[in-house]
Structures are given as structure tokens and as C-alpha cells.
């Protein structure tokens, strides 16, 4: 069975962009590319959980970060991923200037649109030629 690409979202609970990152990871792994991706929690990775690290070690992974601190990307880089594809919600929102995401537990409509746009960008990375996710 082919390995699923781990998707690690931001775990922040203080800002809408963190919530959008998390929602984007769910959209990607549950709706857009369920056969190719799976959500892996950042905290388990950073705390050294063997199962979580096993999912990541030696392969490509996608980090979806909410802010410039890029905790997810840094956590993946320290967990043995061979290549970390970064998707930054704070960049995506700049490309969709009309969106005003709000809410943390429950994103507003713009927040959900931003999450979808972020997930779409991540899906393109998964499908890109040469990436693990591009193989049938």
C-alpha cells in the first residue's frame, strides 16, 4: 500500500489563520486527496511520538502554517521528513485580498473560503510531477 503524505497543520488556537490552516488540512485529507494524504498532529511529532515520526521520516510532507513562525514546517523539518512543502495561509490570504477570515472554533464564510483556497494550493503540490502524490 502506498504511503500517504503527512499533512501537518498549525495548531494555534489564537487566530483565525491558524484555524484556517487546520480546516485546510481537513479539506485536503478528507475531501480533496483522501487517498494520498493524512493529517498528522504537530504535537505528537515534536514530542517524539514514534508512530507519528514513523509517518514522516524519510518522505515528503506538507506543512500548512497560519503565521510566519511556521511551527508546522519547523516541526516537520526536525522530524526527519526528506522534503517539507510549505503552504502558508498568511500568503494565501494576500492572494485573496477580499477575504476577511474571522473566528477560531467556527470560521466565518470567508475563513472557510480561505481554507478551501489553501487546500487547493496544497493539492496542486501533491499532484505536481515528481512529487510522491503524483504517482498513481
Amino acid at each position, binding site marked *: 500500500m502506498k504511503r500517504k503524505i503527512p499533512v501537518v*497543520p*498549525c*495548531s*494555534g*488556537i*489564537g487566530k483565525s489563520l491558524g484555524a484556517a490552516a*487546520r*480546516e485546510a*488540512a*481537513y479539506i485536503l485529507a*478528507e475531501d480533496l486527496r483522501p487517498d494520498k494524504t*493524512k*493529517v*498528522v*498532529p*504537530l*504535537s*505528537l511529532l*515534536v*514530542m517524539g*511520538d514514534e508512530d507519528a515520526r514513523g509517518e514522516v521520516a524519510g518522505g515528503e510532507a506538507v506543512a500548512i502554517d497560519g503565521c510566519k*513562525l511556521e*511551527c*508546522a514546517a*519547523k*516541526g516537520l523539518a526536525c522530524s526527519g521528513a526528506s522534503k517539507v512543502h510549505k503552504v502558508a495561509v498568511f500568503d494565501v490570504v494576500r492572494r485573496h485580498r477580499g477575504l476577511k477570515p474571522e473566528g*477560531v*472554533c*467556527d470560521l466565518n464564510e470567508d475563513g472557510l473560503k480561505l481554507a478551501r483556497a489553501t487546500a487547493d494550493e496544497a493539492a496542486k503540490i501533491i499532484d505536481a510531477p515528481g512529487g510522491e502524490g503524483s504517482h498513481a
Partner: protein
Amino acid sequence: MPNLPRKKVGLISCSGEEMPEGTVTRRAVRKVLETLHPDDTVTLCLPLFLAGGEGERAFARYYPTIAIDGCDKRCAALATQKYSAKPAASIVVTEIAKECGCKGMGSARRLNAEGLRLTDEVAGKIVDETNRLLRKKPRDVQRGVGGGKP
């Protein structure tokens, strides 16, 4: 009279994005922060804490913290202890789910009604612990805290 910093309690929630219990921790913490105890609590970001956020770590060294974990791996509690100081209280959602007979709380992405009920239970526990740490009256005495959607 000097203007001393107000004593606050730091809430550190699990980031378990792959399990509904993780979602329960985040919703419960936001509920306490936004509506139940907004003046007495702050949230500390677990990934930032783990990534070396000095502000988060310093807070947890000098102020009481409550770790709210989704499962018995207790990432939030262990991380707090490892990088700052032992949390003053630790709450585990799976234990509370057993206590209140909560089963089938929905998915990590969308909690169902049972998951939201569990969220209220967990938020109530956080309020109890916050009151204990700040030596405030228990929530049974106070009114206006407890149930309802966030």
C-alpha cells in the same frame, strides 16, 4: 500603590488534530477564554511553546497553568513540564468522556451534539480548576457559567 501584574492562569490545549478529543480541548479552551473566564485566563500556544517561544515558556514558569489534553499521551502536560514547570492542573478529555458517559463525539473536523456536550463538561472543569488556582468561588456558587454553545 504599585500596579502589580494581575494573576492569570495559562491554558495549554492539546493540538491533536487527528482526533475529536483534540477538537474538544480547543473548543473548551476558547469557550473559557472568550466567555467563562475572559479576565482570568490566557491561552498558550502549544506548537509555539514546543518551537521555543520564549514568551510562552516564561509565562508558564511564573504563572499557574492548566494543561488540557485529548488523550493519555498528555502532550500538553508533558511539554509544559519539560520546557517550563509542572502544570498546576491537568485535564484529560478521554477521562472526562468516561466520567460523563460521552460516546461518539463526532469527527475531529466537526463535533456532533455529544461532542459539544463534552466540550461544555471540559470547559466546566477548566473553570473549576481556574477558580481553585485563583481561590475564587466555585462555579456552583457563581451564576452564568456552564452550558450553552460557544
